[in-house]
Each structure stands twice: as C-alpha cells, then as structure tokens.
C-alpha cells in the first residue's frame, strides 16, 4: 500500500492498519526520547548539532537560545503525526501537518540511525548486511521509503 495519496482536496494518509501500528509505536518511542534525558543521549548531537564546531562557547550560546524551541517543535510534530496515525486526525493534510510528518520522519530516522551506529556511508552499508539489528534496519529503510514517498507526493503537480 502506498503511504500517501493526493486527492482533489490535498494529500491524505493512506497507510494500512498494520503500518499505522508500527509507526505509532515508533513515534511513541520518539516522544519518550524527546521527553527523556537528552543530555545523556547521543542522538542529541544529531538532533541539535553544535552550530559552531570549533567554538564551544558560541555553540553553547546558540543552544541556549534555540534548544528549547527546537525541542518543543519536535515534540509538537510527533504529537501531530500520532494524531494522524491513530485516526484522531483524518482527511486532507494542511501545510503544518505535512511539515510535521516530514520532520518527524526525519527525527525517527536520526534516532534509529544512532541506535544502528550509522555515522557514514561505510557504517550505513555494514548495518544492512550484518545479522544484528536486521529488524531495526528494515524499519529504518521503510521509514526512508515513507518519507521519500511523501516528498514525491508533495512536490508532484497539484
């Protein structure tokens, strides 16, 4: 089943019940990560990269003024996606919904990539051929497909 479909009134979520269940569980886990102690979570360096890699002080200053807004934004996005997955929201998505989906799928991929140890092309390659974590790697690839499909659907002629 294709994840999204463009109808006359806009883009609709067209995931199957099983797909919705898998994504719901993942987004709930993302919410836990976002609501947990991010200081000790290496995924934080992917979600909130240092703005000045060679200047710790300037990076800290930047983080001070941006971190809580970004965290709120990511948490809100996850909540929006969850509402669409559970059926609390239905019909054609608005621009904010589309943005929430795109960004939350990215946050999910960043989180899973961290758990899989994907830091470059080589580790990306090895994580797909290894025995360990095959299930998670499949999920990672599937979310990539879902996101690719959404980008394509959003940029296709209206």
């Amino acid at each position, binding site marked *: 089943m294709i994840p999204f479909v463009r109808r006359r009134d806009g883009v609709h979520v067209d995931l199957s019940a099983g797909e919705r269940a898998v994504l719901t569980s993942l987004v709930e886990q993302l919410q836990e990560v976002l609501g947990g102690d991010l200081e000790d979570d290496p995924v934080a360096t*992917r*979600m*909130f990269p240092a703005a000045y890699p060679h200047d710790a002080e300037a990076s800290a200053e930047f983080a001070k003024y941006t971190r809580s807004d970004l965290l709120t934004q990511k948490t809100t996005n996850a909540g929006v996606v969850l509402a669409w997955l559970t059926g609390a929201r239905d019909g054609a998505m608005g621009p904010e919904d589309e943005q929430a989906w*795109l960004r939350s799928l990215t946050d999910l991929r960043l989180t899973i*990539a961290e758990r899989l140890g994907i830091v470059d092309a080589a580790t*990306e390659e090895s994580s797909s051929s290894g025995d360990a974590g095959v299930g998670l790697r499949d999920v990672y690839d599937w979310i990539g497909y879902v996101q690719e499909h959404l980008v*394509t659907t959003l940029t296709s002629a209206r």
Partner: protein
Amino acid sequence: MTLSSPELDERTDLRARYDVPWSTVVWDDPVNLMSYVTYVFQSYFGFARGHADRLMRQVHVDGRAIVATGAREAMERHVEAMHGFGLQATVERAPGADA
C-alpha cells in the same frame, strides 16, 4: 576635542566585526534523503529546483555546501531552521572574511 575619539574608534571596530559576512553550511550526513534535502532547500530558502538540486549534490559530493551568506544573526536563524528540519548545519565566517 580630537577628531577621532577612542570611543568612536571602538564603535567603528565593533561595527566592522559584526559586518563581516558569515555563512550557513549544510553538511553531508548518511541519514537524510537526497530528495528531502532538495525539498528543504526549495521550500525554506525558496531556491529554484535546479539550484536546490545543485546545492544538494554539492553537499553529497563535497561533504558540505554554503547555502547562505550574510549577517551572523540571520545565519543563526537559518541554522536553527535547518536543525528543525533535521539537517546538519553550522555557522562559520564566510570565505575571505577572516582578514
């Protein structure tokens, strides 16, 4: 009264320091899809498809690309926005500004 007071010099220095251009750099990462990066460049910066696509390829091939240049504050806003999209972005002095 002298023409150039120390106070004025200081102010001029300060202005010179803040006038040097800065840039927004987006870095390659193994997670973000090429189509998504192009989409972000198009939708956020308003770049035409071709330009956004060239920048995305530069990120992918060279490992990084300067996507905007200007005042430091504006670059920080761009970097914050890029982080909101989940892209790896940093602020740095624009090339040649380090004189």
